[in-house]
């Protein structure tokens, strides 16, 4: 059996049982063999092989880190120097990043082997992976279903066994929802924990980079490398992130886990069983469950779909056909250049969000929508702060359903927006949140979500790690043909 987890690869590298070159060849071959998933937008075998050889030399010199020689890949919203960086948009189809994002630079410094860039919903706007200008990504568990989004390729590439971990970004659930749909563990750290330098902006007060992998152990390894203060990001939180071992080893027996019952009642009946078993499993680990209420968290969807598009409409004004990206043919004047370059370069959902954001920010509507959404955001943060007075962390569903069919919600933006209802509250409040596999329903993975107070990533990683020591959901794999 081929090695498909980061920790197994690391152990094999440390024991001299394999090499970075061998692991990289295995990953490149898997990427080629599973090209039908459309997980990668750009694969760079030459660069990967060179990095693998350097990693082997570094390990031989006794200077390796946990990630040295591990093949990884990043969502194509992270800049990587000299590489195509498209955000899955026609707007940036021919653009190459002139520098590395901080998260990418830290992976490279650690000796990770970067295979290439992963597919996503255009500018991270979507919950299915279908909004990519370069075609949808398929779910390795069932190729007729979506892998979730917006970090669609990041989830599919791990679930398909191509790479053991990936970077994604999460503005409203874009790491956790695809992790849930693909049977993975995905961490959205506290807002500001992972630098946004070189991460193409969608909604700057919500965007946060993080990692997807099979287990909490592997997610912690990546997070400990990419996290920590970066002076180049003015919103970067101070302080460093603990080593992975420390992030995983907090005692969990005796912790109190808040369970907002209203969220559990709102999920599809097919998910009820695995979620109930997960709750019982936490109790068996010595965790006390406590029913709680989260006032205003149920109103997160409308607040988010005002705030995120408002920020997006502002951030995306930089795509003007002048400094980078697509430019229309033969513009008659500057205004024509702006309008047609943007009209041609952006896809349907991106335009929809720019229009929505422009509406929410326009004179006469600003107070009713934007200002009101910011007030709701305050109440949501307060309701979490209140909850954390009496509980150490929260457990709730990640998604209302398992992975849905490709095309099923393609023309129904509201149905897709509602997909995010359990994940959005953590983004609005800036909390660390993690999705972990808690079981299966009709052969499809079911995810559960852990939330903690700001900067307490270690608490939810430890809870997930303890859960994964006594369960095997994270060890299940899709079969070659699809559903296991």
């Amino acid at each position, binding site marked *: 059996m081929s090695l498909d987890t980061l920790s197994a690869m690391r152990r094999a590298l440390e024991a001299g049982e394999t090499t970075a070159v061998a692991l990289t060849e295995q990953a490149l071959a898997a990427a080629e063999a599973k090209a039908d998933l459309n997980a990668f937008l750009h694969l760079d075998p030459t660069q990967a092989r060179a990095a693998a050889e350097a990693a082997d030399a570094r390990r031989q010199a006794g200077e390796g880190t946990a990630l040295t020689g591990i093949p990884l890949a990043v969502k194509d919203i992270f800049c990587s120097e000299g590489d195509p960086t498209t955000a899955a948009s026609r707007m940036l189809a021919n653009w190459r990043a*002139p*520098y590395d994002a901080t998260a990418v630079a830290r992976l490279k410094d650690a000796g990770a082997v970067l295979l290439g860039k992963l597919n996503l919903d255009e500018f991270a706007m979507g919950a299915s992976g279908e909004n990519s200008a370069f075609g949808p990504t398929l779910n390795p568990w069932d190729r007729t279903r979506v892998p979730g989004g917006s970090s669609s390729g990041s989830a599919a590439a791990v679930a398909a066994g191509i790479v053991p971990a990936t970077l994604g970004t999460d503005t409203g659930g874009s790491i956790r929802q695809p992790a849930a749909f693909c049977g993975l563990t995905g961490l959205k750290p506290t807002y500001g924990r992972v630098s946004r330098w070189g991460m193409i902006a969608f909604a700057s007060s919500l965007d946060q980079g993080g990692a997807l992998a099979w287990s909490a152990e592997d997610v912690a390894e990546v997070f400990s490398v990419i996290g920590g203060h970066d002076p180049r990001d003015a919103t970067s939180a101070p302080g460093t992130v603990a080593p992975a071992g420390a992030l995983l080893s907090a005692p969990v027996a005796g912790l109190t886990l808040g369970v907002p019952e209203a969220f559990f009642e709102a999920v599809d009946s097919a998910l009820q069983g695995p979620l109930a078993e997960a709750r019982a499993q936490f109790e068996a680990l010595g965790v006390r469950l406590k029913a709680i209420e989260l006032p205003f968290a149920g109103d997160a969807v*409308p607040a988010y779909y005002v705030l995120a598009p408002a920020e997006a409409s502002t951030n995306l004004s930089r795509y003007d056909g002048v400094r980078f990206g697509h430019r229309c043919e033969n513009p008659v004047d500057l205004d024509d250049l702006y309008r*047609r370059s943007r009209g041609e370069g952006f896809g349907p959902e991106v335009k*929809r969000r720019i229009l929505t954001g422009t509406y929410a920010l326009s004179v006469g509507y600003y107070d009713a929508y934007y200002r*009101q959404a910011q007030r709701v955001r*305050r109440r949501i943060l307060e309701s979490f702060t209140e909850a954390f007075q009496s509980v150490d962390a929260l457990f709730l569903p990640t998604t209302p359903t398992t992975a849905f069919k490709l095309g099923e919600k393609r023309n129904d933006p509201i149905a897709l927006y509602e997909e995010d209802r359990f994940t959005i509250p953590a983004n609005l409040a800036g909390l660390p949140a993690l999705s972990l596999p808690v079981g299966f329903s009709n052969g499809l993975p079911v995810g559960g979500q852990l939330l903690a107070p700001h900067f307490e990533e270690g608490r939810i990683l430890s809870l997930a790690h303890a859960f994964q020591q006594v369960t095997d959901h994270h060890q299940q794999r899709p079969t070659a043909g699809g559903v296991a």
Partner: protein
Amino acid sequence: MALDPDAIRRLATLSRLALSDDEVAGYSESLSDILTVLDRLKGLPVGDAAPLASPLALPQALRPDEAQPVTHREALQAGAPATDNGFFLVPKVLS
């Protein structure tokens, strides 16, 4: 509240987005639907809650006022549609 095609055209002008008539019709429908979701905000009992722009109340991070190496102009302009001698080229603005 419904957004008719003229309202969509006004938003498109503000957003500097060229839209076809079909797109205008489509967005008129979908944005009207979205507004019914966003309108759930109205009437929520938020009381005197102060607007929250960013989730973390952190002090502004400052760094030493020292010159740092920056990405070269040539590298940044390599991705621009049209440049000349360090300038970005645009259609004539003054007649």
